[in-house]
């Protein structure tokens, strides 16, 4: 079978740069990382210099995600040889044990790290991940709350806690976590939209009005957010349809809903025109290719 570099006519530098971009963007495209990384490691490791170690780590984590224990072990062994006493490598050892569902052994590894370094946040978060993997949501929530009391600025942890609360249908606490995230990330339209969805799900007039406001805020930050557009339409329509609201509130919300409907209509018309143009372009392209242009 042809290698990736042969199939796509790319050199080892492009593959290295691609891996770096995926690292910086925190992409979880594990299958692609394994394909590119495995070839880079096996055929070009001598050219990578010190980058090889971070690539080993990146490929190892992606390999665990794809159940490629063979590749993960290869990468881990190289890292252990180079960094025998590293907590970071010990954490990777723990992650491999987690992937093999040897949770007790993984916990022992993390406890050993925490004994030497109680401030190691990565090991603490892995222990919480184990609880989540085992379906122990209540314990995971408790541990995560204790963690956040000490590390209150950890946004990843706040987001994880909001997800846990949503899965437990504890929407009030999920909303609190998302409020923390919105405070530190006021320009993130996704947090606004998720907060609005939680408020909509909670129900009640006050929550619906908050939902409408935050759907609108998400649209201000990103006017292509379709979930926010539909959410604005639905929340405004429900408020307008309520018998408890005043005539002015009803009129305003009818206006908001009409605007959202028009935007949705426009977005779908544009998408159809683009699909038509795309298929027309392909027809023309095929035509020219066929007649030898």
């Amino acid at each position, binding site marked *: 079978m042809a290698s990736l570099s042969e199939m796509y006519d790319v050199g080892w530098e492009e593959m290295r740069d691609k891996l770096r971009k995926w690292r910086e963007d925190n992409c979880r495209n594990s299958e692609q990382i394994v394909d590119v990384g495995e070839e880079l490691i096996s055929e070009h490791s001598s050219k990578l210099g010190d980058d090889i170690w971070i690539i080993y780590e990146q490929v190892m984590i992606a390999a665990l995600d794809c159940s490629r224990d063979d590749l993960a072990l290869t990468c881990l062994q190289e890292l252990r040889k180079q960094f025998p006493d590293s907590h970071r490598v010990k954490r990777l050892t723990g992650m491999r044990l987690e992937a093999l569902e040897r949770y007790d052994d993984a916990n022992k590894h993390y406890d050993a790290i925490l004994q030497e370094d109680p401030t190691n946040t990565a090991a603490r978060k892995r222990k919480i991940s184990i609880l989540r993997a085992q379906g122990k949501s209540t314990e995971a929530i408790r541990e995560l709350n204790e963690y956040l009391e000490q590390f209150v600025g950890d946004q990843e942890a706040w987001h994880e806690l909001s997800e846990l609360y949503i899965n437990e249908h504890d929407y009030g606490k999920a909303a609190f976590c998302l409020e923390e995230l919105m405070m530190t990330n006021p320009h993130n339209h996704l947090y606004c939209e998720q907060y609005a*969805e939680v408020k909509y799900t909670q129900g009640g007039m006050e929550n619906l009005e908050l939902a409408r406001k935050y759907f609108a805020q998400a649209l201000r930050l990103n006017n292509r957010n379709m*979930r926010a557009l539909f959410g604005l339409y639905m929340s405004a329509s429900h408020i307008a349809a309520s018998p408890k609201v005043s005539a002015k509130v009803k009129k305003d919300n009818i206006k908001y809903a009409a605007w959202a409907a028009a935007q949705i209509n426009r977005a779908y018309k544009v998408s159809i025109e683009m699909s038509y143009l795309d298929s027309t372009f392909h027809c023309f392209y095929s035509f020219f290719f066929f007649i030898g242009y």
Partner: protein
Amino acid sequence: MSCLLSCLAYVKMYLHSCLFPRCSVNGLLLSSSSAGGAVCVTDCVPLLHSHLPLAPITQLALTQVKEDLRVQEGDQKGRREPGCRRWPNRLVELLQALVSRVPLPVLSPVDFCRLGTDCCPFLSRIMLRQWEETRDIASQLLESGDHGLLVDFDGHLDDITKDWTNQTLNAKIAELSSPANGSI
């Protein structure tokens, strides 16, 4: 209650769970049933792979599927242009349906990891016609990477040019499961 799963429904459920191996996914099973008989699940509509417990997108997805099915029934009586997009024309009806008090269908969790007789608490027996062929079709599509063709409703909202009704994938599954291929 017993349930007969069609090849199309099973394969789409399987591919949906394979496309998002790290998430919980949900979808709608479309069925016809005779009184007192087994439920025949003829198709599956993959819906969400994120924030399943939140209401707005679930409500939107269920309403759109219902509208689409209603229009399909009407289309069967008249002529339907292949590949036409009905969205802009039916937008008003859809949006009105969204805010009307439409009773939701029963939602039942299905554990895709154990897609067998014990995967759904509401059903006492799940039957699959020609299980070997169905399983082969699912594996073939997964190995060829065609599970990437599947678009769920979440994916449609991320990019509204993608077709959540999965016409291309449906055609591929129908082709693989046709008698001409020595299959079902």
